[in-house]
């Protein structure tokens, strides 16, 4: 399948890749392409990339929609803390229970800096947007994790966190509590107990959501797009990431190599200006080095994966041009 068909046949497109490859740009260009094809598309980004908002002509701090051709393009930036707080409000049995949790320092850490917390809220927002039914396709720009695969593990991590410790009775438990008090102070342990007590009212609802999120990520509605760049170290990371996606049963559908350079004739005569000559020599050397690593990489990808090579654009991002290069 070509990338355009993949985007046309899925309700969720998840862009993954290591940092700095232009994942946010590719995500936005895919959404723009889907809108140009007549769909109601949304791109959900994590990075507060103002440059992207400018390129889209949309203020990313507020969800906005703009008509594009026959379709509609909407963009939103994930507000992690706000999304967690809304999530708690939706799942807490009473307002009072929600208030206790929102004020708890352990909850505040969870909602801002727990490993997997951003990732999980991105997935949760994705599910919520789909359920709301206002968009035909949602493109998710995944957070720049140290390990991009953290994204797929996030629902499990949240699940594990909610496994309340049961063995609280007995001399050993009292001893452990004393040691933890020595380490962290008794206030922290009281807060922890409050956290688990308040969370326990939400657990059933949250577990149903994490189950739903897991099913969505592996189901037929979702397609993963792996974004990479033409540098040896990035391609190495990409190979590892593709393998990890297979292990986690994620439906990888396409690989996009972003910011490639055209092959150039080696001999162009001598330029009078040394600065221009130096830039030309750089371009020739880069193009040759790139071709040497990119061709074996593309050949090594499993059959059936769409592969798209996007040339480096101008310094200022032109999403329309990127979408055209993506063939959508």
């Amino acid at each position, binding site marked *: 399948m070509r990338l355009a068909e993949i985007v046309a046949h899925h309700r969720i497109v998840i862009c993954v890749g290591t940092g700095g490859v232009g994942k946010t740009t590719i995500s936005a260009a895919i959404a723009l392409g889907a809108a140009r094809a007549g769909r109601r598309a949304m791109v959900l980004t994590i990075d507060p990339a103002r440059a992207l908002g400018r390129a889209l002509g949309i203020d990313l701090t507020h969800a906005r929609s703009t008509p594009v051709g026959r379709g509609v393009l909407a963009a939103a930036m994930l507000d992690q803390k706000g999304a967690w707080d809304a999530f708690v409000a939706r799942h807490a049995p009473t307002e009072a229970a929600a208030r206790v949790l929102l004020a708890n320092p352990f909850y505040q850490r969870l909602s801002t800096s727990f490993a997997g917390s951003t990732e999980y809220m991105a997935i949760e927002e994705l599910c919520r947007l789909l359920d709301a039914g206002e968009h035909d396709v949602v493109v998710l720009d995944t957070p720049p994790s140290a390990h991009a695969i953290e994204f797929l593990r996030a629902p499990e991590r949240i699940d594990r966190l909610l496994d309340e410790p049961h063995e609280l009775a007995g001399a050993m438990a009292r001893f452990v509590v004393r040691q933890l008090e020595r380490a962290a102070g008794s206030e922290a*342990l009281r807060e922890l107990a409050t956290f688990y007590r308040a969370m326990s009212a939400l657990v059933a609802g949250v577990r149903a959501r994490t189950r739903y999120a897991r099913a969505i990520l592996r189901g037929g509605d979702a397609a993963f797009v792996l974004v990479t760049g033409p540098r040896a170290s990035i391609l190495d990371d990409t190979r590892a990431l593709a393998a990890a996606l297979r292990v986690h049963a994620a439906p990888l559908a396409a690989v996009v190599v972003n910011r490639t350079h055209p092959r150039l004739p080696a001999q162009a005569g001598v*330029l009078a200006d040394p600065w221009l000559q130096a830039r030309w020599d750089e371009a020739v050397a880069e193009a040759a080095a790139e071709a040497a690593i990119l061709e074996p990489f593309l050949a090594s990808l499993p059959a059936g994966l769409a592969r798209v090579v996007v040339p480096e654009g101008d310094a200022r991002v032109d999403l329309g041009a990127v979408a055209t290069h993506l063939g959508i």
Partner: protein
Amino acid sequence: MLHFVTGKGGVGKSTVAAALALAAAGRGARVLAIELGDPAGLCRALRATPPAPGAIVHAAGGVHVAFFDGAAALAEYLTRKLHLGRFVRPILEHPLYGAFVAAAPGLRELVAIGKVRDEYVLQRRWEVVVVDAGASGHALEHLRMPAAAARTFASGRVHREAAANAALLRDPAACAIHVVATPEEMPLGEAIQTVEALREHELALGRVIANRCVPPAPADVDAALAGVADPTVAAVLGRARAWERLQERGLADLQARLGLPVVRLPRLPIAELNAHARALAWSLVEVAA
């Protein structure tokens, strides 16, 4: 001196961290390079075999390398700090401990910084410690954690430990947090936000380092460009000139907004990372001093 290196993904942080370590080692200092995230990049740039978590290996150029894995580091750290002796295993294996560690999310970041401080302050073995702190968001989480933890844990050992770590990260005489960017719109924008966040939290800001800069174009370059007849060559060079313009505008804008000078590192031909790190070390001798 304790150096942290951060920046947007893909700007060459690990290479710059490695170059900084090599520059310090070149001056004769005993240098330890530490990776807080995935050790692959830093090890590639220093041509070291990735060490086991917590282990220290010798790399080329007189630098030593270590990386700290979250869970193992935390267990080791608590064991040492709490003097638990033979009770270590039952405690670490108890579900309450697991729950506490999972629900106190800042603890791992706190321990990572705590281990850096141990290596730097308490072990007299190193004169310079360079930390590859990962992408900006990840690094800020680590760097903000000691102060945040000192507030959350109002008493106990964790509080004292966190407060000492927070003080170190705010001391410009001991610590420098460097922000790396490439001279493009998004990385420069992220660098500005990172510097603003560091200032807001009163953390010890080091230098802003612009990696992969081309030299500024000569004044008459556009006339020379207009004279290029071959359309392929003209297109490639036209784009190079446009990039250079944005580089200069972006760097000037960053300097004006932050009121900080920028250290420029040259764009190097594609080569393996260790060659880059060694080449860039020359430009960082003054930063490493």
